[in-house]
C-alpha cells in the first residue's frame, strides 16, 4: 500500500477515537462533566477521558492560563505522543477574555503552543464543545489539524516565546 493510503487509514482511526486529556485550568472545566456523562454522552463518538498525557490525543485547555500553569501545560503537551491536537476553550486563550489586562495570565495561547481549534464563548456550552469536537474530527480526516508538525518545525520560535513568558510575564503587544 502507498504511504498516502496508510496515512488516510491512520487519520480515520485517529478521528474515530479521540482520547481527551482535560487540563482543568479555568472555568471551562465545569462544562466537561455534562459532556462526558449521560446528558451529552461524548463516548458515542469514540471520545473518552484519559488519565495521563501519554495515553491522550487531545489536550483541552479549559480557560485562562496563568504563567505558572503554562509551564505545566507545556510539559504535559510535550509528553503526549504524535499526532496530538490542542483545543483551546473559551475566549481567554484566544485574546485574554476578561483577564486581558491581568498581570499573571497569558493572552494568546497560540504564541506558546500550536492550537488546532479555538472554541469561543465565555464559557462554551456542552453543545458547543461537541460541535467543536466534530469540527476537529473533520479537520483530522482532511489532514488539516497539523499543530504537532508545526510545533516540531517552529520549535525555536515557540521555545523563545515560552522562555520570555516565564521571565517577563507575557510577550504579546
Amino acid at each position: 500500500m502507498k504511504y498516502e493510503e496508510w496515512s488516510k487509514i491512520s487519520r480515520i482511526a485517529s478521528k474515530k477515537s479521540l482520547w481527551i486529556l482535560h487540563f482543568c485550568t479555568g472555568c471551562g472545566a465545569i462544562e466537561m462533566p455534562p459532556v462526558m456523562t449521560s446528558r451529552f454522552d461524548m463516548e458515542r463518538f469514540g471520545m473518552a477521558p484519559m488519565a495521563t498525557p501519554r495515553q491522550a490525543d487531545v489536550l483541552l485547555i479549559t480557560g485562562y492560563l496563568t504563567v505558572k500553569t503554562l509551564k505545566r501545560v507545556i510539559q504535559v503537551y510535550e509528553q503526549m505522543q504524535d499526532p496530538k491536537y490542542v483545543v483551546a476553550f473559551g475566549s481567554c486563550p484566544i485574546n485574554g477574555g476578561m483577564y486581558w489586562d491581568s498581570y499573571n495570565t497569558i493572552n494568546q495561547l497560540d504564541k506558546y503552543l500550536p492550537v488546532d481549534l479555538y472554541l469561543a464563548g465565555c464559557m462554551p456550552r456542552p453543545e458547543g464543545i461537541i460541535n467543536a469536537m466534530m469540527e476537529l474530527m473533520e479537520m483530522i480526516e482532511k489532514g488539516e489539524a497539523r499543530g504537532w508538525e508545526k510545533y516540531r518545525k517552529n520549535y525555536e520560535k515557540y521555545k523563545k516565546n515560552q522562555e520570555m513568558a516565564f521571565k517577563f510575564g507575557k510577550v504579546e503587544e
Partner: protein
Amino acid sequence: MVTVVSGLINVLIIAIYATVAMMIGILFMGIGRKIVARVHNRVGPPIYQGFIDIAKLILKKTNITHGWIYDLALLFSITGIVLTILFLPIGGVKLLSTEGDAFLVLYLLAIPALGFALGAGASGNPNSAIGVMRALVMMLSYELPFVISMVALMIYYDTTSIAEIVASQYGKWAILIPPFAISAAVADMALQGMLMEAPFDIPIAPHEIASGPMAEFGGKHLGSLMIYKAGTIVAYTTLFVDLFLGGGVVMKGGIVADVVNFIVWFILIFLVFTLSLLINTSFPRFRIEQAFKFYWKYEAVLAIIALVWVYWMVIS
C-alpha cells in the same frame, strides 16, 4: 515429510485459534463499553470501538520507550495470555491440554500479570509502582479462594485435567450440584478481581493513581496492552465456563457438534462477562485492605465450606 506437513498445519490451526480468541476479546471490550453505557442510560460507542482504538494506537507516529525491559515485558504478557488460552478447552476442543494442566493453567495465569507488572515497573512512574503493588496484593488475595474452589472440583471429578473436568460435566454442569453453586459464586467474585472490574479495580483506579500501571504507556505500547487486556477477558471467562458451566459442550462427535459447541461457548462467556460488567457498574471501589479482607475472610471461608461438603459427598 508427512509429519512436517501435519506439524505446519497444527501450527497454522493454533495461530488461527489464538487470533480468533484475541478478536473475540477486542470485540468484547467494545460490547462491554456499550453495556456500561446502556446502564448509565447513554448511547455508548459502537461495538467495534475496540478495533478502532487499537488501530489508532498502533498507528501513532511516536512511541516513547523506557528501555528494553519495558518493551519486552509486553511481549511477555501477551505470550503468557495466548499460551493460557491455548491450554484451555474452548467448546470442548483442546489444543495443548495434557494431564495435570489445571495446575499448569494456575501457574500460567500468573505470568501475564507479572509481565505487566515488570513493564509498569520499568516505566518508573510512582503511580505505576503503587498500582503494581496493589495488583500483586490483589493476585495474592483472589487466588486463595479460587484455588480452593478448583481443588473441590478436582476432588469431585477425580482428575487434574481441565479437559477431563469439562468432559465429565457433559449433561450435568458442575454449577447444578449444590456445593459447586457456592464454589461458582466464590470463583465469580475471584473473576471480578482477575478482570480488574469494580469493586476490585483497585490496581488501575484512574481517579486515584492515574490508571496505575498504565500511566506511562502510550502509542504502540498501550495498543499491545489493550490486546493483552482483550486476551485476559477471553482467558478468564473461558476458565470459569470450563470449570463450572461444562465448557459449552452440548453435543458430541462431528464437525457440526464442534460448531454448535463453539457458539454455546461464545454465548456462555458473553453471559459471564456481562454479569461481571453489571457488578462493575453497580458498585464503587474497595480499598486494597478491604478487598484482601473480603477474599480471605468471607470468600475463602465459603470456598472451604464447599470443599468440605464435596469431600463429604465423595467419601459417603
